[in-house]
């Protein structure tokens, strides 16, 4: 990590975890990035990753609290991305 970057972990659940074949990854982002920029950065990988900004409804949590794309990120934050919940 450079002085102007932060590192965040990103977790995926349910349908998204299966489609991306990924439980968790780590990524560097410029300091001052928000949760939405995590999704935009990953969506540029193309393929299944494009659905992260493709209009499918998704929920975001930062450090296990519900968040929005505009939620700012700090170093070592945990960002979770998942489909709308269906428990109960």
């Amino acid at each position: 990590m450079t002085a102007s970057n932060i590192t965040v972990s990103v977790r995926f659940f349910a349908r998204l975890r299966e489609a991306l074949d990924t439980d968790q990854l780590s990524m560097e982002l410029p300091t001052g990035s928000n949760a939405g920029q995590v999704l935009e950065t990953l969506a540029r990988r193309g393929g299944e990753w494009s659905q992260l900004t493709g209009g499918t409804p998704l929920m975001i949590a930062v450090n296990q609290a519900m968040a929005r794309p505009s939620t700012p990120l700090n170093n070592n934050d945990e960002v979770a991305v998942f489909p709308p919940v269906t428990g109960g």
Partner: protein
Amino acid sequence: MVSIQPEDFDAAAEYQALRDSGAGTGAIVTFTGLVRDSGDKPDVRGLYLEHFPGMTEAVIEDVIQQATARWDIREARVIHRIGHLELSDQIVFVGVASAHRGDSFRACQFIMDALKTSAPFWKKELMSEGEHWVEQKASDRQQADQWLDQDSDRES
């Protein structure tokens, strides 16, 4: 009391715990969700429930706190199962004890509605051939949203 567990639960023991919440308890409302064998997909053989450990418990505790701030309740107990479930299995239990019935009914329904749209659980339906993730229903979102518009009117 919040428990996320693969094991089945004993609704009778939960009810007894709510009865033991003190001599001021006059009303207990319980909700139990079961795996149905019919409905949208008659072919469903069972469910698999995934969750987000840690966040799930925190969200449900927060929902119970909201209910406690809004209604006069003495105790709330929530159990949600995860993993593989068979038809007719119990999935979820929400029980509320309070002095008056209106508070119990409203708090129990509020907790269940909020859980449906806020707690990070995902349900996969297991069919005789294949499986698929369940999509969230618009009606569940509307049901949860209605609590935003309501006053916390009480009756005794």
